[in-house]
């Protein structure tokens, strides 16, 4: 059975394009706007969505995504509402892969089995749980895989040595290369180091591989698109939400973010 994620990468490759993944936090700035934002992102060329599950203490995220989490939690976002939002998205967009990204504690409190069931029912394709390394696979990864959810691994510059086989052993969907040593949105990724990292990744896995963390502009995304199978943009987009929140104009917010997404999507075309 071909998964939505695999189909998404195949379709892009056939057009000589890289896949564009976009990250937004569920419920930022509020549940309704956030859902409308997802629609706008798909309309403006996002190939897959990474939907952040808000957490009070996002250890691997920079200021932009921290602030997004706080906005969402303040506006009443919960894991249950995030799952509901995912289900709504799936009804409106039957083919666009949807990946939930976040931290383990809200899932642990919700209950791992209940979460996996709910995510499956909602039509979620994969999970990225930042603070669950392979050493903690019994917590969620094993059961998620069994249920048919792709457990997407982050590979970092510190992982590329002996540890790489351990990290990608149970990886599903695609491999997510963290292009900077650092937290989200704080530095700019260097193309050369991404190139050598991908050479190493291709030796070790046949899964598609995307690059993210530190890709902030269409120009940069275009360069990375020539190396990676996909590019993820998060903080730069979330920053646009933050900038527009101040204006209090949701339509402008959705239009601004949509325009930025369209420019990124255009940058996915390889020459």
């Amino acid at each position, binding site marked *: 059975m071909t998964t939505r994620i695999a189909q998404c990468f195949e379709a892009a490759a056939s057009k000589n394009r890289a896949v564009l993944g976009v990250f937004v936090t569920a419920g930022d700035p509020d549940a309704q706007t956030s859902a409308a934002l997802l629609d706008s992102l798909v309309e403006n060329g996002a190939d897959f969505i990474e939907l952040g599950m*808000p*957490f*009070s*203490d*996002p*250890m*691997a995220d*920079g*200021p932009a995504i*921290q602030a997004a989490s*706080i906005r969402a*939690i303040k506006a009443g976002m*919960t*894991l249950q509402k995030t799952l509901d939002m995912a289900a709504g998205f799936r009804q409106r967009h039957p083919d666009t892969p949807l990946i939930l990204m976040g*931290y*383990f*504690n*809200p*899932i*642990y*409190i*919700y209950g791992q089995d209940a979460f996996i069931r709910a995510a499956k029912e909602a039509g979620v394709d994969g999970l990225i749980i*930042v*603070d*669950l*390394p392979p*050493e*903690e696979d019994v917590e969620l990864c094993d059961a998620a895989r069994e249920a048919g959810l792709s457990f997407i*691994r*982050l*590979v*970092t*510059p*510190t*992982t590329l*040595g002996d*540890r790489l086989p351990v*990290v990608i052993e149970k990886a599903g969907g695609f491999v997510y290369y*963290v292009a*900077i*040593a*650092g*937290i989200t949105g*704080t*530095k700019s990724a260097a193309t050369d180091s991404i190139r050598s990292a991908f050479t190493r990744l291709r030796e070790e896995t046949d899964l598609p591989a995307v690059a993210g963390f530190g890709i902030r502009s269409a120009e940069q995304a275009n360069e990375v698109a020539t190396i990676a199978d996909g590019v993820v943009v998060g903080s730069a987009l979330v920053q646009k939400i933050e900038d527009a929140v101040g204006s209090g104009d949701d339509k402008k917010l959705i239009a601004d973010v949509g325009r930025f997404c369209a420019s990124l999507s255009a940058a996915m075309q390889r020459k």
Partner: protein
Amino acid sequence: MREKASNSYRNLPDDNGRFGIHGGRFVAETLMPLVLDVEKSYHAARKDQSFLSELLYYQKHYIGRPSPLYFAERMTAHFGGAKLYFKRDELNHTGAHKINNVLGQALLAKRMGKTKIIAETGAGQHGVATATACALFNLECEVFMGAEDVRRQKPNVDRMRLLGAKVHAVTSGTSTLKDAMNEALRYWVANPDTHFYIIGTVAGPHPYPEMVRDFQSVIGIETREQITEAEGRLPDALIACIGGGSNAMGLFHPFLDDEEIEIYGVEAAGHGLDTDQHAASLTGGSPGVLHGNRTYLLQTPEGQIKDAHSISAGLDYPGIGPEHSWLHDIGRVNYVSATDEEALRMFQLCSRLEGIIPALEPSHALAFASTFLPKMAADKIVVLNMCGRGDKDLEAVLPLLDERGLL
């Protein structure tokens, strides 16, 4: 450093860093190689005689160990009942038990070839101890401290700066200890090759809870010898305050297998356990995952971490070390609590009766002792860890004592 016996309370964590369901290594992939490296290096170092000798040397000549075990005769008479001894870790260089752990980790960092140190701090005691060790060993030092705590604990910020540390005022989240720890972890993620993270309590990803416990166990090991010399036997009960729980674990761990000894950990009840303003993770929280480990946390029904409150910045943390959570689950240690108000009264009482100004943290332990000792016979012996001195708290405490007519 620790014995292995199948019927022991002292042979955890297991290879995955677990104490029962607690502990573990819940960190981002960027940090995993670093955490594994610290584990490997620490497990080698603790078997290396030259490392242990160097640690012993600094414990003796720099910290001033062993710290005295002192019979608090006037407090004993005042409370009536069991004899109360203080393990006087407030006499250590830098004024608290924190230095015991910091020296161990700084020596380990040096051994691993790291030249730069990261630390988080709440009240500033761990930050000061880390800045001190970094001056001693010529290491660069960056301390992360919540902006709110920077304001509340200015004297300690000044001390850190004088010692050569760079203090980062953390404004993310609620600007207190948990946010300082988030920010220190983020900084470590961004600087994995050069930096060593010295965690100040028995929490965080494996091997930190084990390593910090081992470095603090000197407290309990000395206590065993000293009480045997003074009384010809082991004590009947132990009492220590708990924030993250490092001073308590240091005292308790060497006694865990002496099952006849009752052990009490005292959490901070803030304005009261029936309010939202406390820091009692065990009595008022539930298991969750934060800062690299599973442990009891103060959290919402949705799994968002709540703010803690205590008059003592050193206890003002919404989590607790995972080994304490396990000892709570199996019932080996009794976890109780004391409020801000009770701690304040002990701060004054101990100063007046013993000429020892306790930190607000051990004032919580004294508050429990004040109700516990009178219930025990006069031939019983209780040891309380006087884990820090109160000079740092004067500015905050004196106006409150004045209001209560206690000055």
